[in-house]
């Protein structure tokens, strides 16, 4: 999935003539460079125990990692500025000509976030049903009730398989806790 693949058009894109301006790409590289700076600055805050026997303290490796990240990110920024754009990944279900569907991305992130609250308050099966149905509908599932039913089925099945049978402590939630098989 991380492989280099030829451009759909068969030839590399001419420098700087991509379909989009490289603002997002530059921004990501800049954020990586800033993370590098952050790691270096943060390394200074690591407490070095006094009288430590080791020659290389706990700060040295972080300094190195931060420097690597910073230098590599700067190299990427330079590459982008000189027209060497990154090739977006291809995949079986990726349409190389499609425009970015930001709505889908944001909705999926929101749907996934719902777990943060739902798992603890309404339990695992329902949290999974919400994630599944929400994601399926976001991605264009045709019938909403199928998505909801499959989601509920998946939630209950995983609860039984992982919670009851394999013994992972997935919370069944207040709605199901009274059923003996779920709170075993």
């Amino acid at each position, binding site marked *: 999935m991380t492989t280099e693949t030829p451009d759909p058009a068969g030839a590399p894109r001419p420098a700087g003539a991509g379909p989009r301006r490289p603002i997002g790409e530059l921004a990501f590289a800049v954020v990586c460079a800033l993370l590098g700076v952050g790691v270096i600055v943060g390394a200074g805050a690591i407490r070095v125990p006094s009288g430590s026997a*080791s020659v290389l303290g706990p700060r040295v490796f972080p300094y190195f990692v931060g420097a690597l990240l910073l230098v590599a990110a700067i190299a990427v920024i330079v590459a982008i500025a000189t027209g060497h*754009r990154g090739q977006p990944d291809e995949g079986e*279900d990726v349409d190389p000509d499609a425009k970015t569907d930001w709505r889908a991305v944001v909705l999926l992130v929101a749907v996934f976030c719902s777990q943060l609250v739902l798992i603890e308050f309404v339990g695992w099966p329902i949290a999974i049903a919400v994630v599944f149905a929400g994601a399926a509908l976001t991605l264009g599932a045709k019938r909403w009730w199928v*998505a909801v039913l499959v989601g509920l089925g998946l939630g209950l099945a995983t609860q039984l398989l992982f919670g009851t049978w394999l013994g*992972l402590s997935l919370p069944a939630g207040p709605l199901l806790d009274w059923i003996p098989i779920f709170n075993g």
Partner: protein
Amino acid sequence: MDSLAALLEGFTTALQPQYLLYALFGVFVGTAVGVLPGIGPAMTVALLLPLTYSLDPTGALILFAGIYYGGMYGGSTTSILLNTPGESASIVTALEGNRMAKAGRGAAALATAAIGSFVAGTIATVLLTFLAPGIAKLAVQLGPADYFALMVVAFLTVGALLGSSVPRGLVSLGLGLMLGLVGTEVLSGQQRYTFGVPSLADGIDVVLIAVGLFALGETLYVASRLRHGAVQIIPVTRGWRSWMTRSDWRRSWKPWLRGTAIGFPIGTIPAGGADVATFLSYASERKLAKGRAREQFGRGAIEGVAGPEAANNAAAAGVLVPLLTLGLPTTATAAIIISAFQSYGIRPGPLLFENQSGLVWALIASLYIGNVLLLVLNLPLVGMWVKVLRIPRPYLYAGILAFAGLGAYALHFNVFDTLTLLVVGIAGFLMRRYGYPVAPMVVGGILGPMAEEQVRKSMAISQGDLLYLVHSPFAIIAYSTMAVIVLTGIWLKRRRAKLEAAPKLVPTSAIQAIDEPTK
């Protein structure tokens, strides 16, 4: 002969009905998930990890081995039958296999891939059986400086060779190393980058990095550019008994063996794993092909499926050599396997064969068993895998998201991990979008802390003398090999880009016409 006796003992463990069932289950689930489009071996392994959480170590590793081989296997079915470019490890299979399928020879392509994987997997596992104990014995004598050298080699080859540009690979590696820094540091017990959050004190689990990058990041990325409309699958006609003709066999067996010979050594060295091996095998088959076969390359030559597919599986077994003997993960999948070992308190490395020999040999025995099971499962069940391929995409990716959530939450039963997963997933989405390889990040996450430990131990031994890092012949050889690997790797990548751009599409009716007379 030592290893033979140990292996037999491993078989007596692995053939117990309970473990046999685990192996069967692992192979089955691994293939089923690996067949799913967009899911490579690494994601298969990462998503199915929760299955092993409550098993005993032997059972878990046997299940895991099945999933690993099954995931590798499943990918080839996808790339042959699905009418779109495939996943990385088998992308060259997609070149020829996909075209064979379009020309009505999908059955032969599937069969040569399955049998080739079996042959290569078995030979490579035999090699693993006999090489690993010896390497482990040698590895016991390696000092921290030597280990550090090995890890630097792994870092640089993985970072520089994967993906389209060296700086992007290194950024990905750096992000992984950064996540690896978080937590309580082993040698002096200091908290680093935890910002006072208790959940961060234990560090960020590599499983989170892998699931976040592969499952969540991939889903977000696919969602951003989803291919709408009906799923196109190339129908497979003939029954599976008559899949390969006599000429198919004659044309396949040499590529299988050559693929194995190429795949296994490349798998064992940190050179980008199966990816490089399949490409090399494809290139050599294309070069060696003569006459009619030569003409067929780019239009569905069976050699172009048999060789790379064998190389792919041989490399998968080869990856286990440094993994088991040195504790060195060289691919993203291997990084996840290491973290699975660690969750049982087992540290892969030279001492593994002494301290946990029962476990290791049961694992190796189960690799043999898994290979046989795969062959038995795959050919007759292909109709079922085709149905799996037809799962409507909204439900498929919704399911991946749900299982990613399970994988994160089941780690510590804490939604903080879910949040971490989300952050890593968004990073993974952006990395895919802007052409960064994600595998170096996973490898960096697991190898970073190990490398730091080794370099600090070396410095403690040498009292800060940097020359100690290159004092042993082993380290010097490792560093010079690294230079060679990186340079040839970059050269190979340039060639590969050219090669992949080369094959021209020919109307499928013309391919069929070439093939018909031989039946």
